[in-house]
């Protein structure tokens, strides 16, 4: 039951997601991503770092780090991109392997070892990779070739074949090269040219090459020696260049972490959500692209599995539509959309439906600027979308966008915009908010890019009424004591860094699935970094907490007495009607009983005269469980009163 309900909720959300699908430049292609990780295996790549006594010292050779990073990437992608493919190609190996099922196995691509063919990863792949990273290299896969040079053109053509056959027609195909060799063909002009030609083939196939250079020691990875002939500018990328970062160990960062952070930034292909005009002023349009940078990651939903065959198989569902009145199957073209109104349907033709949703061509139109402080803190409904300029439709977009970004940052202003993000999408009001450069010291978001964000604003329709009255104010003394506690318990740097908090439910879900798939032993305790660090809290603020509690107790006692006194006066006042109502009511609804009344009721024993329903109200209103018999309820309430008064 609960599951069905959940699925139904998901379906509702899916309609949004569907509309939000990231757009691909060529829509005829499958919206899938394939990554082939090519890792060089060479003596220098296999060399472990110098021995160090430091506990934090690096222990991984570059190849080890690359493989661990690959495993991390694979596990992440199973969660974040469950339909996308990944493969691992080792090059420079003594052994050679292409596909088992291929007649030309190994003949074509010497020193290329296809450790894991391009495919959606399976649990066994994770296991195999794990074994390899844990030094269980039984097959001596990680043994470098004895020849001096490995032909890069061969490696690139091998990758070409893997992509063409396994990931044909994919919207995004990426070759990640991890190497420490910036000049593989230093003395061989012909080999260099051959590699350049093969690289062009990859470009023509729409395969992008992302280079993850590894720098060791003080040496610099010089792109101009070889890789500038191999790597192309992404035609869909921004006009300005993003630098290629070399991974290295040092500055307290291990090679592995440095590599993970570099590869992580490419974990999902950078696809734009939309590509739209931004109307900064009447008559001034530029082009921007939108990106999904914050997005709630959910576990994949359950599927149905058929167990009666030789191997467990996922059953694919097909939906047929049937008419409710006659149960006959309905063809797609018969289906119409209508609105329920007063128990009947109100119908619009498809053209009319379209007209209803039409609020003009997609655009982001600034209607004015405001102080940032004018956006109330509670004005939040949905995640924001990052926007960044593109020169595709309007030349000069980047500089105008930059001017706007700088101005908004400098004066702490925001733009107010009317947005229609896709044709026929609901219009939305958004604040255009600038984010700072990551490198700036006082930036609170070192993990976010600099640019503008479309921050969706609630409308009057999204506001809920709140009718609450609580007028009790504490003393200055208590405020001061609390202030000390707050000051003691700042998170590191006083910022919230989401990267430090993996989603415990999501991680546990996949951890268990992995365990089940590999038939391993169940983990006992989930790792949950979102739990408060109670020991640290006690250590840093324990004493202050005690002081605060003392003061609170005194003040609370006084307030309780004052309140009940006031109530007694009110009760004795000659205002008959109020009194009468109370008598006539005879049943003070349980949730309305004050603490003092409740205590009186317990002391006088009158509480046992209350009905179960009333007791449940009393318990429920205080967050206690409402299950069990009357005696249970009584006991629970009495205990609560004892603890809380």
């Amino acid at each position, binding site marked *: 039951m609960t599951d069905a309900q959940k699925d139904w909720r998901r379906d509702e959300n899916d309609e949004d997601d569907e509309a939000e699908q990231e757009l691909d430049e060529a829509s005829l292609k499958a919206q899938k991503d394939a990554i082939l990780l090519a890792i060089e295996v060479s003596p220098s790549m296999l060399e472990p770092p110098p021995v160090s006594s430091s506990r934090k010292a690096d222990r991984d050779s570059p190849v080890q780090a690359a493989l661990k990073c690959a495993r991390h990437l694979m596990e992440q992608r199973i969660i974040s991109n469950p339909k996308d493919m990944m493969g691992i190609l080792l090059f420079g190996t003594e052994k050679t392997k292409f596909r088992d099922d291929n007649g030309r196995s190994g003949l074509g691509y010497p020193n290329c070892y296809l450790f894991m063919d391009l495919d959606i990863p399976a649990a066994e792949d994770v296991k195999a990779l794990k074994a390899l990273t844990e030094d269980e290299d039984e097959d001596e896969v990680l043994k470098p070739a004895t020849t001096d040079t490995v032909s890069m053109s061969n490696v690139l053509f091998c990758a070409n074949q893997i992509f063409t056959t396994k990931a044909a027609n994919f919207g995004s195909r990426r070759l990640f090269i991890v190497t420490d060799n910036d000049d593989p063909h230093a003395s061989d002009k012909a080999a260099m040219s051959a590699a350049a030609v093969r690289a062009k083939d990859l470009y023509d196939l729409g395969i992008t090459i992302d280079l993850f250079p590894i720098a060791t020691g003080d040496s610099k990875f010089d792109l101009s020696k070889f890789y500038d002939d191999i790597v192309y500018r992404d035609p869909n990328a921004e006009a300005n260049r993003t630098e290629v970062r070399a991974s290295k160990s040092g500055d307290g960062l291990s090679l592995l972490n440095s590599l993970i952070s570099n590869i992580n930034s490419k974990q999902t292909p950078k696809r734009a959500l939309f590509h739209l005009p931004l109307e900064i002023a009447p008559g001034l349009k530029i082009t921007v692209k939108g990106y999904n940078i914050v997005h709630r990651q959910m576990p994949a939903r359950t599927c149905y599995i058929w167990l009666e065959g030789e191997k467990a198989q996922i059953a*694919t569902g097909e939906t047929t539509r049937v008419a409710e009145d006659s149960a006959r199957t309905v063809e797609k073209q018969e289906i119409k959309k209508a609105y329920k109104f007063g128990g009947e349907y109100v119908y619009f033709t498809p053209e009319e439906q379209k007209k209803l949703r039409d609020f003009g061509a997609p655009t982001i139109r600034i209607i*004015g600027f405001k102080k940032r402080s004018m956006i109330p803190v509670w004005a939040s409904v949905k995640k924001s979308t990052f926007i960044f300029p593109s020169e595709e439709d309007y030349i000069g977009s980047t500089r105008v966008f930059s001017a706007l970004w*700088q101005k908004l940052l400098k004066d702490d202003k925001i733009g107010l915009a009317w947005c229609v993000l896709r044709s026929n999408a609901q219009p939305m009001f958004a604040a255009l908010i600038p984010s700072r450069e990551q490198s700036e010291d006082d930036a609170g978001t070192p993990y976010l890019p600099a640019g503008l964000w479309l921050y969706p604003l609630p409308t009057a329709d999204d506001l809920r009424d709140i009718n609450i009255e609580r007028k009790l104010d504490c003393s200055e003394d208590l405020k001061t004591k609390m202030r000390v506690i707050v000051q003691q318990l700042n998170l590191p740097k006083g910022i919230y860094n989401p990267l430090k908090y993996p989603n415990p439910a999501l991680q546990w879900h996949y951890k268990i699935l992995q365990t089940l798939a590999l038939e391993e032993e169940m983990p006992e305790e989930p790792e949950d970094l979102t739990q408060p660090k109670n020991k640290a809290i006690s250590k840093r603020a324990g004493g202050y907490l005690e002081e605060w509690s003392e003061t609170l107790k005194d003040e609370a006692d006084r307030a309780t007495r004052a309140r009940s006194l006031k109530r007694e006066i009110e009760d004795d006042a000659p205002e008959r009607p109020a009194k009468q109502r109370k008598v006539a009511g005879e049943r003070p609804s349980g949730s309305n009983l004050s603490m003092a009344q409740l205590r009186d009721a317990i002391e006088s024993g009158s509480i046992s005269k209350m009905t179960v329903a009333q007791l449940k109200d009393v318990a429920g209103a205080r967050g206690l469980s409402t299950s069990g018999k009357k005696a249970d309820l009584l006991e629970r309430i009495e205990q609560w009163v004892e603890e809380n008064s």
Partner: protein
Amino acid sequence: MADKEATVFIIDLGASMAAVNGGREESDLDWSMSYVWDKISNVVASNRKTLCVGVVGFRTDETNHTLSEDGYENISILQPLGPMSMSGLKALQPKVKPSRTVEGDAISAIVIAVDMIDKYTKKNKWKRQIVLITDGQGEIDPDDIGDIARKMRDSNIELTVLGVDFDAPDYGFKEEDKPSVKKQNEETLKKLVDGCGDDSRLASMVEAIDDLNEPRAKSVKPYKTYEGLLILGDPKNAPAVVEIRVERYFKTHLARPPAASTVVVKEEQAGQSQADEDEPMDGAELTAVRQARTYKVNDPDAPGGKRDVEFESLAKGYEYGRTAVHISESDQNVTKLATEKSFKIIGFVQKEKYEMLLNLGETCVTVASKYDEKSELAFSSLVWALSELDAYAVARLVTKDQKDPMLVLLMPYMEPDYVCLYDVPLPFAEDIRTYQFPPLDRVVTVSGQTLTNHRLLPSDELNQAMSDYVDAMDISNYGIDEDGKPAEYATIDELYNPAIHRIGHAIKQRAIHPEKPVPEIPPVLLRFAAPPTELVETVQPHIDALIHAADVKKVPPKAKGKRQRETVKPISGLDVDALLGEEQKGSISPENAIPDFKRALNSSEEVEQIADATKQMGAIVRSLITDSFGDSKYAQAMEGIGAMREELINLEEPGLYNDFVRDLKKSLLSGALGGDRRDFWFKMRWAKLGLVDKKQSEVSSVTLEEAGEFYKSR
């Protein structure tokens, strides 16, 4: 539960109501009824038994009611008081039409309406209302108004009088050359309303109709999202902790436009109503559509490689990568993190270091529980401390046992009646994609130099122009508040979700007038779709200066498609094509088909060479399809076809592609490519890989119709 409401509309149907006045295009009756229909359709839409309406007409040709005394002629009950349905609405509509009479007294009609309400609501708790609509042209007997007013007060009935073209000095409306009868009637009715109590009022019809256009947000009852303790510290082990009993409610919750249901024409009517498509569809002919699911698994022995399986034979599970993980019934929740309902603060952050663009969703509000002095005081100290320190708290929240934990940001806020913490959900590590973007304020060249002067960066002039423009277009103070003082423009209270109100408005209109076309978007919904016109006029010099300094040029549409002709080079600028020997350029190998094809086209100078490359590529595609086991090589073939289509459009040779694709379709459907390949043709149709039409390439000889027909015909 919402209050029970009983409303009786009294409508003046006198002959004079048929007149068209005040420069309007419809009769006074139709104009006034747009108000009444709107109100009644709200009742219909609510589908609530406790929202009741009745309609009484006066100055009607007939007399039809239950009071058999004199003086009540020419009054008819058109709709007895009760809940209203769609069919009730339809039945009522034809009854509301102007009569041929001038006889009939508004005050008597009120007496009848009061009687209807008294009988229906008895002594129970109801909200009672009478709305009188008149043009004030008939005789109104002023003698009994004191008694009537007393009676209305006694029965606790609210009276609203809406007069067609009545004077409304507050609203700035005055009718010229008002007949003396009407003048007198306006005064009489005013006196009546004044006697009926505070809630009663008299207004000019125009006020009510203007008010209809103003969107209304639906008010929703508060929803409690958490109730329990808010904790700082470890209650089990620490000697002292912060423990506050709190309640948490929604502050914002995304409202959605009404969703359309999927329906189909009822079977018995299917034949008939498809015959005349132009007839407006009546809702009653439609029935809902249900979804039925069937499941298939791969089976190499079955025809088509798939076979149906019974739903009962399936077990639940998840996908881990491409591995199916079966979860037995007994450990259904094994992948679920065990959690206990809790609300725990994990630490504090500085306000100025938090960016609201991290907010991942709707806001809730947390306050201390009622009747718990200790919690109220503790909560107050927390909110005050945060506020004084400009700090926020980060907390882990589990709203119910077994619910997934989330992290929320708690922000202090002082309201007039209470202090509270607003909270928004925060992203986890998995929710952030760390894409890299180039910097916006500098350019780093290939050689590693950093430039601050570049065509991608704003000049000082542009920066200044932008700054002036942004300052001039500041709307922080452009609005006007209730007292006529400058105030914030476009506040959240003034923003309405255009889609919700657009669709709601259209549904109502369609329900009342099924024959009318879909109305235009009410202008009030577009109030904030563009910058305020008057402001733009004053700011125009700044805009001109900005446009000049920006010097933005639109890319001509042609240039976008033709980019392929210039040779693409790697970052170093190496001319890769020049590295190849001449002889290699024309032949296309099956292993490296697409790059070879592109290279062949690039080096071609004659049309024959292009035709030759197309032929070679076509042959490779055909053999991929022929050799495909099932659909194993379809994707490769599709990619090849896609490349051919794109390249040949770019080279302005759509004819070559069209010849190829015509031929391919024939072969696919005739079974010449290794058996039944209709499934491949469906894929091509889906991917729109058919004929290149004139719109896609100017030099194509294929019309849009031909291209469309190509997809349809078999």
